[in-house]
């Protein structure tokens, strides 16, 4: 929805600007920008279905259970009172999650846990035993080196492997 809205808007503005460029630049148009609807009571919750979908513990528990029955996926001190760099850490985390998801394609069994200790970045991942171990080591070396150079801090990976998805519940 959001994509189609923005592309339509883009088409409209380009058309208008081609028709009468100078006039539009001077007058300045304000238009409403909206994204798709994201309700907070539907985020990160799996709705109960027929009972044939296997869910891990992480997926099955909704977000209000964080700090009760769940832990955090990202450990850093930037969210404490008076600390700086919150947004930077969050953006870094998002990038790292996508990077690992793409590098270890279809091997991730669960969400990453990213911890920061001192200036070190520790990525803890749970993976399936899809590839032979030497391929895992290749990707681990590649990831550590690339992310270290990218973020200018030591990056370590700690990998644990499981044979198949660790099911907690069927929903």
């Amino acid at each position: 929805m959001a994509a189609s809205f923005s592309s339509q808007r883009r088409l409209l503005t380009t058309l208008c600007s081609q028709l009468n460029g100078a006039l539009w630049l001077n007058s300045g148009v304000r238009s409403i920008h909206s994204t798709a609807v994201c309700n907070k009571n539907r985020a990160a919750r799996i709705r109960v279905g027929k009972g044939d979908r296997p869910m891990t513990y992480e997926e099955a528990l909704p977000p209000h259970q964080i700090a009760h029955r769940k832990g955090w996926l990202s450990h850093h001190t930037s969210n404490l009172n008076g600390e700086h760099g919150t947004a930077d850490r969050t953006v870094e985390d998002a990038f790292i999650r996508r990077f690992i998801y793409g590098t270890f394609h279809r091997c991730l069994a669960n969400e990453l846990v990213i911890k920061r200790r001192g200036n070190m970045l520790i990525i803890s991942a749970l993976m399936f035993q899809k590839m032979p171990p030497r391929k895992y080591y290749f990707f681990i070396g590649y990831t550590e080196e690339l992310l270290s150079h990218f973020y200018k801090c030591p990056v370590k990976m700690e990998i644990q492997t499981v044979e198949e998805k660790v099911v907690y519940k069927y929903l």
Partner: protein
Amino acid sequence: MTYNHITYVFFLFMLYFISCNRNKEAVLQALAATVNRDPTASNYVLQDDSYLIPNSYAQFKLFTLSKESGRNTAKYFINTYPKYFQKDFAEPHIPCLMPETLELEIEEVSEAALIERIQLRKVKAAVDMYDQLQQSGTPLSVDLTNDLLDLICLYGDQDPAPEQGSDYMENVQPSACDLRLKQIWVLENNNAERIFHIMPERTRRSYGALIRGMVKYGAYSKAFDMYTDMLNNRLTADVHIFNALITAAPEVREQIQEKWELVLNLLKQMAKQDVKPNLLTFHAVLRCLRRSRHLAKVFSVFNEMKALGIAPSLATYNLILGIVYKQGPFAKGHTEILEKVLDEISGKSFTPQDPDDGMISADTYFSLLLETHRPFVYLIQSSCCSWRFFSLLCMMENIDVVLKWYKELIPSLYYPTAQGMRDFLQALDTDNRLDLIPQIWKDIKQMGYGNMSDMVEEILSLMAREKQSPESISNTILMIFLIQLFFFSFREMLNLFKPNNRVPPESLMNDFLASIKASNKAQQAVELVQISASFCLPVTPSLIERVQQEFELTEEQRNVLTALESSADMSD
């Protein structure tokens, strides 16, 4: 995490005892005792997961090399697209995490461009730039030309291969220089010689660069010609030139005596030109003596070194021991040399001065251990020595010492070969500790030798040899299950009992039957009954009954069983 917990608890215990003893240094000792090498953990570069831990040396090497190649891939990307890695978050600046600038920046023909190429070690580009500068007529300083000559001679007129490997790779590939193809001095249109000849003035440094380059890349006679040329131009040589020439001396003469005379000649010239020898000179001389048989010369060289006040390094001892023990590792008369060397080495720290310092040859190590039984713990890091060390231990030492070292070394520090495990089993046999076989068998299987038939046969023969106590029998039975589940048939296994005049116990037969039941093979059950009948075991009738009840038997099998039953009844 559990290891941390254990050390914490251990530390608490230590503190408790210390408070009883009131020893002042006990706290420090307790703290020091908690920081040890963990013998159960694998190498720190590996991941701590059972799927990702290697079981053999080949796997260990494979995994570390894969990790290293991953790193090289990342480095390739970083250096090819450096613009994505320029943003500098780190405070203070970390230079090793920035992309390497290997690209040439200065393009126009100038001295600064030549300097830049020399610094970036780009041999061919530097030579081209020099030629362009010559053609444009710019005068170049002698120092700069000497730098260029040094660069060309160091890399043998070829661009250097990209560097690879970090610290731990040294353990995995200890002789990387052997793997690289040996370069030879380029004979036709050599850039170094050409530039040398068009130089307006040649200093000792220029001659030195050429001579050392020639010796490094194998053009030995040319090096000597260059040296005579140098003397004809009334220049004196320095210590580096003499070291290179002494290294080259054995290659330009045929007879051993002539080689030694040439070396002596060079040393005399060195004295005449008032050049002081250094440690590397003596190493070069010792290397020349490698193939000679006169040990007196070796000792005279060593004494002269001491007289001049040059402290010997590890490589010196390595060379001396290599020469002394070249005649055979069991030359008994020279044990005292080893003792003296060991006394000298122990308790000292060495700074590496010669590239050979780190590599003590396997033969000398072997002979060292044979004579003295004093292991060099720091040398255990390289696996080429570890298996010899361990096999020597198995041969020589008490079983308790062997077990202690086994727990320390295997499998965290080194992965034994099949032969190493066989030696270990022999040591167990010699000292009557065959009750440890179940645990050792678990280790053997983990290392991947569990499918080797000769290994399994050896284990079984060891087990069958001893009359074992009841507690150990259950262990061995458990083990037999493991074995027979894989590939042995009962007949073969029980045949091992026969030649040794041992009777398989009743519980064993019962357990066999239970396991056959699990795999539900009626034919094997009938075979088992036949074997027990051949042993005339008292348990045979009950076995027959059980087999008849629990298995689905064909006509033929039933007939066999009834025949056995009747024969058993008759013998009663």
